[in-house]
């Protein structure tokens, strides 16, 4: 288990007979209480198909039913019940091409970590621009990995902080809007393939912004995690 931020943990799973997955897919985690009550939630796969482990990154919602258990109570060696990998729509592999624009709000970054690792592991030549929105630098997950990924000439990483930023912060500030999407992304005539993931309200804002900028809705794929904005 890796602590990403005070509320977010990455969990590595040892799975028997894992059939392999595509970057961007998710699994459903099912918990069963001692009285037989069952509940299920979806979690994106954070690892690349090429990685040795399958991992999930879970953000704890304080009043949540499932996420506090996964973040705070699960211990190495515990077993959980999974279904998947599922979801072929929000998946990317090198054959789908680009240029790629990935837009993440909060834990919406999880499937993109898989895609970016796959991008590197498969030696993809597709140019990628990633825009992440986080409340503060402390709450931005995968910070160190993002810095390493950005060292690749083909990968461009932009971060916007919506609540607080360090005094010497040189990235963007404030919520996502069409101006930020156009500076950090591709122009409509470059016909990017876009993936947007995060809280529902964030995804709606980003998708509407890109459509307003003239992007083809048919090349914009979205995945909503529920909840409000970032």
């Amino acid at each position, binding site marked *: 288990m890796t602590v990403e931020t005070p509320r977010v943990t990455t969990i590595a799973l040892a799975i028997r007979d894992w059939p392999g997955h595509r970057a961007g897919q998710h699994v459903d985690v099912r918990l069963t209480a001692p009285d037989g009550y069952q509940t299920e939630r979806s979690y994106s796969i954070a690892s690349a198909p090429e990685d040795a482990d399958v991992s999930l990154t879970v953000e704890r919602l304080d009043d949540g039913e499932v996420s506090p258990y996964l973040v705070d109570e699960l211990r190495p060696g515990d077993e959980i019940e999974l279904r998947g990998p599922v979801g072929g*729509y929000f998946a990317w592999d090198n054959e789908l091409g680009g240029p790629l624009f990935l837009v993440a709000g909060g834990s919406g970054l999880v499937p993109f970590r898989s895609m970016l690792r796959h991008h590197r592991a498969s030696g993809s030549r597709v140019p990628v621009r990633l825009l992440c929105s986080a409340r503060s630098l402390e709450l931005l997950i995968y910070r160190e990995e993002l810095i390493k990924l950005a060292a690749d000439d083909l990968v461009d990483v932009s971060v916007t902080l919506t609540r607080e930023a360090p005094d010497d912060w040189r990235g963007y500030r404030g919520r996502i809007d069409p101006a930020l999407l156009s500076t950090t992304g591709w122009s409509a005539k470059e016909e990017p393939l876009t993936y947007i993931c995060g809280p529902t309200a964030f995804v709606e804002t980003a998708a509407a912004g890109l459509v307003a900028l003239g992007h083809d809705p048919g090349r914009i794929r979205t995945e909503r995690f529920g909840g409000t904005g970032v």
Partner: protein
Amino acid sequence: MHPLDGNAMAGVMHDLFARDMTTMGYQCTGCGKTGAVAEMAVYASGPGTVARCRDCDTILLMLSERRGMYCLDAPGMTHAILPLA
């Protein structure tokens, strides 16, 4: 309300149809628009799951589960589900 989308139904639908349904296309009876199953607006907080058309709110799918039995109703899909071009 902050609805999910059809990606959230990928697991259940895979159990029911034994294949990935998120990339399948549908046509809405309310407004005639076509879309991918992954794009439906999905409300999962009630006793069952309801999927609506993102454009006109027509109910496309209703899914409930009782003691391991699924009940699926697709009132708003004309040609139930078509492969997306």
